[in-house]
C-alpha cells in the first residue's frame, strides 16, 4: 500500500471522498511519523494525538454523512476536510497552548480561536499540533526558539530557516501535507526555500490576523506551506477572506479557482506570453553560485515554455533591510508590551510593579526579542522618531512605488531568488545578527510593499533545496498560483523532484542527537 504521508492534501482528500481511507487513518499515520521523528527534528512543540484523532473522527462522520447525502454534498465539503494540518505555535486554538516560541507564554492557554483556526475547523481540517518557531517570529533559522532549534529534514545539522521553521520542516518531512506559517519579512518563503517546499505569503489583508500572536502588525501575514502549489492554494482558500475582527483584512473576494487550479498541461500552456520581470537587485553580491545557477535555470525553463522575461530594476531594494529593521521592531516594541506577567504567563519578581516587569520580561524574553524591542523603542523615542520611524515609512513608500511602476508597465509577476544561499548550519549566523538579517534581504521588500510572494522549489545546490520566488501585484495570488503550477508542470520530470529530503532516515533513528544537542555541539566546535 502507498505511504499515505507521501500524498498531497488533495490526493488525500480524493481518497477520503472515495472512502478508500479514513481521516482517522490519515491522522494516525501522520501522527506516527511526527512522533517518531520529532526527537531528531524538533519541528513540533506539541503533538496533540488525542485531540487530532477526535477531530479526525468528527471529519469521518461529516464525510460519511455527505457521502450518504450524495455527490453534491461531497463536493460541498472543503478539500481539506479530514486532512491533517500543522499550525505555527502563534496561532490561537481555544484551550491550547500558543507560546510563540517564547518562555514568556509558557503555560498560557488561549481562551479563543484565531479566525483561521475557526475557518480550518469549519473546513474540517484535522489539526495535529503546533510547530516550532523563532521566538515571536523574530529570526530566520528557528534557532531563536526558547524550546530549542528545529533541524532541516535535508541535513540534521542545518537550520530549516525561520521563523516558521517547524511548519516548513513538518511538511518537508511528510508529517503533514500542509501547514500554516506567518511571514513578516520572509518567515514563510525563506524556510519553504530552505526545506524544498512551497510557501506563500499572501497580499497584506488577504488573511485575518485575528488570534495570531503579532510580531509587526503592518507586515505580518498568515500563509500556507505545502509540497505543491495546488495544496497551497487549497489551504489559502480555506483561511482567506474578510474578517470583521481584523480591520486590516480586506473585503476582497476569495477566488474559488484556488480550489481547482488548471491541469498541468493547461498550466504549462498558460506560461506562454506571460511577462515576467527579473529584478537585478535580488542577485546579491555574495550569492551562492549554486543558488544563482538554479534560479537562472528556472527562469530559462519558463522562457522556454513561452514566458517573456525581462531584467528589471527595483532601485530602492538596498534600503529594504534598514527600513524593515526600523518598522518591524518599532511595531514589535509596542506589540510585545502586553507580555507583562499581569494576566497570563509566568510572573516573576517580588511583588513591586517595576521589579515584576523587569524580572518577567528580563527572563521571559530571549536575546533576539530583547534586541528588537530595544531597536524599536529607540526608533520611536522622542527626538529620534522623525529620523528613524518617519523616514523609514517614507522609504517604505518608495519601495512600494518601485513595484507599482513595474505593475504599471504590465508585468504579470516578478521572478527572483528567495534566498541567496541554501540552508546554513546551526550557529553559523547566531553570532552575527546582521548576517542573519540578510537571510531575508530578498523577501522583506515584498512585506514592505504588502504584495503576495511565493517560494517554490527549483532544484538542489550541493544536495540542498533552492527556492524560486514569485512576486505578484496586490491580490494577484491567482496569477502566482498559475505561474507556479506551470513551472511545476514543465519541471515535473526533473530528476531533483524525485529526491526526498535526505536526512529522513536519520531522523527515524531514536539514537540521533536532538537539534539542541547538535547545535550545542556545533557551538562547542566538536563537530565539523
Amino acid at each position, binding site marked *: 500500500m502507498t505511504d499515505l504521508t507521501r500524498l498531497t492534501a488533495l490526493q488525500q482528500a480524493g481518497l477520503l471522498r472515495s472512502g478508500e481511507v479514513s481521516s482517522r487513518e490519515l491522522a494516525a499515520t501522520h501522527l506516527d511519523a511526527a512522533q517518531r521523528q520529532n526527537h531528531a527534528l524538533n519541528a513540533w512543540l506539541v503533538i496533540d494525538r488525542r485531540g487530532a484523532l477526535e477531530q479526525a473522527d468528527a471529519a469521518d462522520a461529516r464525510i460519511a454523512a455527505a457521502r450518504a447525502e450524495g455527490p453534491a454534498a461531497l463536493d460541498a465539503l472543503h478539500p481539506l476536510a479530514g486532512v491533517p494540518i500543522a499550525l505555527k505555535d502563534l*496561532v490561537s486554538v481555544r484551550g491550547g497552548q500558543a507560546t510563540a516560541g517564547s518562555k514568556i507564554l509558557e503555560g498560557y492557554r*488561549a481562551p479563543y480561536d484565531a479566525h483561521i483556526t475557526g475557518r480550518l475547523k469549519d473546513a474540517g481540517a484535522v489539526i495535529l499540533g503546533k510547530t516550532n518557531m523563532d521566538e515571536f517570529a523574530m529570526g530566520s533559522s528557528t534557532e531563536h526558539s526558547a524550546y530549542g532549534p528545529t533541524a532541516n529534514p535535508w541535513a540534521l545539522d542545518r537550520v530549516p530557516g525561520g521563523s516558521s521553521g517547524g511548519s516548513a520542516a513538518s511538511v518537508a518531512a511528510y508529517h503533514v501535507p500542509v501547514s500554516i506559517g506567518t511571514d513578516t519579512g520572509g518567515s514563510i518563503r525563506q524556510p519553504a526555500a530552505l526545506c524544498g517546499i512551497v510557501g506563500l505569503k499572501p497580499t497584506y489583508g488577504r488573511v485575518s490576523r*485575528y488570534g495570531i500572536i503579532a510580531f509587526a502588525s503592518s507586515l505580518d501575514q498568515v500563509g500556507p506551506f505545502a509540497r505543491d502549489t495546488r495544496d497551497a492554494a487549497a489551504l489559502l482558500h480555506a483561511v482567506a477572506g474578510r474578517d470583521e*475582527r481584523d480591520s*486590516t483584512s480586506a473585503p476582497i473576494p476569495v477566488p474559488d479557482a484556488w480550489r481547482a487550479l488548471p491541469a498541468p498541461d493547461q498550466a504549462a500552456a498558460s506560461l506562454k506570453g506571460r511577462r515576467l520581470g527579473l529584478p537585478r537587485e535580488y542577485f546579491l553580491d555574495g550569492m551562492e553560485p549554486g543558488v544563482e545557477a538554479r534560479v537562472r535555470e528556472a527562469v530559462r525553463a519558463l522562457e522556454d515554455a513561452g514566458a517573456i522575461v525581462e531584467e528589471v530594476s527595483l532601485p530602492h531594494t538596498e534600503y529594504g533591510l534598514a527600513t524593515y529593521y526600523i518598522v518591524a521592531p518599532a*511595531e514589535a516594541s509596542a506589540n510585545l508590551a*502586553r507580555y507583562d506577567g499581569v494576566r497570563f504567563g509566568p510572573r516573576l519578581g517580588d511583588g513591586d510593579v517595576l521589579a515584576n516587569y523587569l524580572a518577567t520580561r528580563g527572563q521571559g524574553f530571549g536575546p533576539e526579542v530583547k534586541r528588537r524591542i530595544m531597536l524599536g523603542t529607540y526608533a520611536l523615542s522622542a527626538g529620534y522618531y522623525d529620523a528613524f520611524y518617519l523616514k523609514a515609512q517614507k522609504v517604505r513608500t518608495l519601495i512600494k512605488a518601485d513595484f507599482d511602476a513595474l505593475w504599471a508597465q504590465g508585468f504579470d509577476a516578478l521572478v527572483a531568488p528567495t534566498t541567496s544561499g541554501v540552508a546554513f548550519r546551526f550557529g553559523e549566523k547566531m553570532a552575527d545578527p546582521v548576517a542573519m538579517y540578510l537571510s531575508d534581504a530578498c523577501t522583506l521588500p515584498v512585506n514592505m510593499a504588502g504584495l503576495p510572494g511565493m517560494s517554490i522549489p527549483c532544484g538542489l545546490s550541493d544536495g540542498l533545496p533552492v527556492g524560486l520566488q514569485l512576486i505578484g501585484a496586490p491580490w494577484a495570488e491567482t496569477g502566482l498560483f498559475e505561474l507556479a503550477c506551470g513551472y511545476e508542470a514543465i519541471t515535473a520530470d526533473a530528476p531533483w523532484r524525485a529526491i526526498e529530503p535526505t536526512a529522513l532516515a536519520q531522523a527515524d533513528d531514536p539514537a540521533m542527537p536532538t537539534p539542541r544537542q547538535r547545535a550545542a555541539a556545533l557551538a562547542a566546535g566538536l563537530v565539523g
Partner: protein
Amino acid sequence: MSATAPSRLETVLERYEPVIGIEVHCQLRTVSKMFCGCSTAYDGAAPNTHCCPVCLGLPGALPTINRRAVELVLRAGAAIEGTTPPVTRWDRKNYFYPDLPKGYQISQFDLPLAADGRLTFDTSLGPVTIGIRRAHLEEDTAKLIHAEGTDGGRVSLVDFNRSGAPLMEIVTEPDVRSAEQARRYAEELQLLLRSIGVSDADMERGQMRVEANVSLRPVGTEPFGTRVEVKNMNSFRSVERAIEFEIVRQGAALDAGERLTQDTRGWSDDRGETYVMRSKEDSHDYRYFPEPDLPPLRVDPAWLAEIRAGLPELPAARRVRYQAELGLSAYDAGVVAGDAGATALFEATMDAGRSLDSVRPLDAVRPLDAVRPLDAKQVANWVTVDYLGLRNAGATGSAITVDPAQLAAIVRAVGEGAVTRAQGRQVLAEHAETGASAAAIVDARGFRQISDAGAIGAAVDAVIAANPAAVADYRAGKAQAVGFLVGQVMKSTKGQANAAAAGAAIRERLDGAPEAATPGDGAPSGGAVEG
C-alpha cells in the same frame, strides 16, 4: 487656610494673570466598548465580567472601531463648532502600567476627530468664550483596586470591566483666566454633552474627569509661566477650589523668588490643597506612532453633514430663545436650560399646553377655542421652583417623574383660579409621587375652587349677615375689612372659594355696584365646575 485664601487670591491676582487650560475626559454613551463588543453596562457588575480577549489585551487580539463612539465625538465636535479632517487616524500611546493591558493605549495624536472649536458660557463677570484645541477618541484603562490580601499584605487587583470603554478627551486652548471660568467651562461642557446625548458626564461617577493646567504670568506679559497639571478634582466645586489654591500657591512661590517645577499635582478635597503626584523628571516618553492594526479613518462628508443636521438645539441657543421669544428672565432661562430634566419638562409642558388635553383633565366642558398657550413664565416658575425643588428634596439619584400634560393642567388650573397655588403645589407633589392624574388628585382631595358666582354669592351673603361689625367698618371707609370678610368666606368654604371672586362679590354687595365676579385672570367663567 480656606478662610484666608480669597484675600490672598486677590493680592496674587493684582500682580499675576492665571493662564489655565482644561482637559476633560468623558465616557461616551455607547452600548459597547471602543474596540470590542463588550457591554459598557458594567457599573455595579462583578469585577472582570465585562471583558474579552480584545479588552484584556490577550495575545493575537485585534481592535475594531466602534462607529457609534466615533459618531458621538463627531457630534461633540459639531456642537463645539470644531472642524473634522477628511482623514484621521489612531495612534498608540506607549507606557507600562497594570491597568493598561496592551502596554499601549489606542488614542489619537496629531489628527484628532475634531479641532479648533469653542464654547461660550456666562460667568459672574459676563459671557466668556474658550477656544477648544481638540476633541479626540481613545480607550479607557482598567481599574486598579488596592486591597489587603489574605495574608494581610497589600495586594493590587485589576478589574478590566472598564478597560477599553470609549473615552473622549477635550482639550481647551490656554484661554481660561480664572478658577470660576474653569468651573463654569466644565459645567457648560457637561450640560452640552448631556444635551446632545454624548455622555452622562457625571463627575462623581468618573464619567467626566477634569484636569487643569495652571500657570501664572506677570500681569501685562505674554510668555507663559511654568505650568502645573492638577488632577483628582471630583466635583465642579473642587475644580474651582483646586485652581484657586494653585493660583495662590504659585503666586506665593513666585513672590518668594522660587522656581516652579512642571509637576503633576493631585487635589485633596479634605485638606483643601494640592500635592505633588509626579515631577517632570518622571515624565513619560509615550513614543506615539500610528496604530498599525487600524486603517486611517475617513469621515464621509455626508455622514458629518447628517450629524450636524441632527444636532438638537444647544443650551446656549436655548437660553437665548427662552429670553428673546418666551420672555423668561436670564436667570430662569439659565436654570431651565441648565438642567436636562428641567429643559425636557419645560418644553413638553409648553407643548402640552397647546393641546386640548391640558384642559380636559380639570375641565371637561371647556370649548376648544378656550385653549390658549400657557404662560411661559408661569411654566418656568413651576419647573424651576416646584419640579426642581421636589427633585432636589428626594434622595440623591432618585428620579422623579412628572407627566408634562399633568403639569400643564395644573399650571392652567392655577392660572385660571380653578385651584389655588398652594393646592396646585400639593397636586404636583402627589402626582410626582404616585403618578396619579391631576384631576384624580383634585377630586380626591376636594381641591376644586369655588368660582361660581351663585355658590360664592350664597357664602358671601351668609358671611355678611353674620358679621355686621365688619360690614360697618367697611362702610365707614376701612377697606381692609374686606380681607376679614374674604377670610370668613374661605373659612366657611373650607378654603375652596376663589378668593378674588369672593372679594368682588363682597364689594358688589356692600357697594351695591353690579359687577360680575370673574375668576382668576379673566378666563370665561361660564364653564367653571362646581366642587
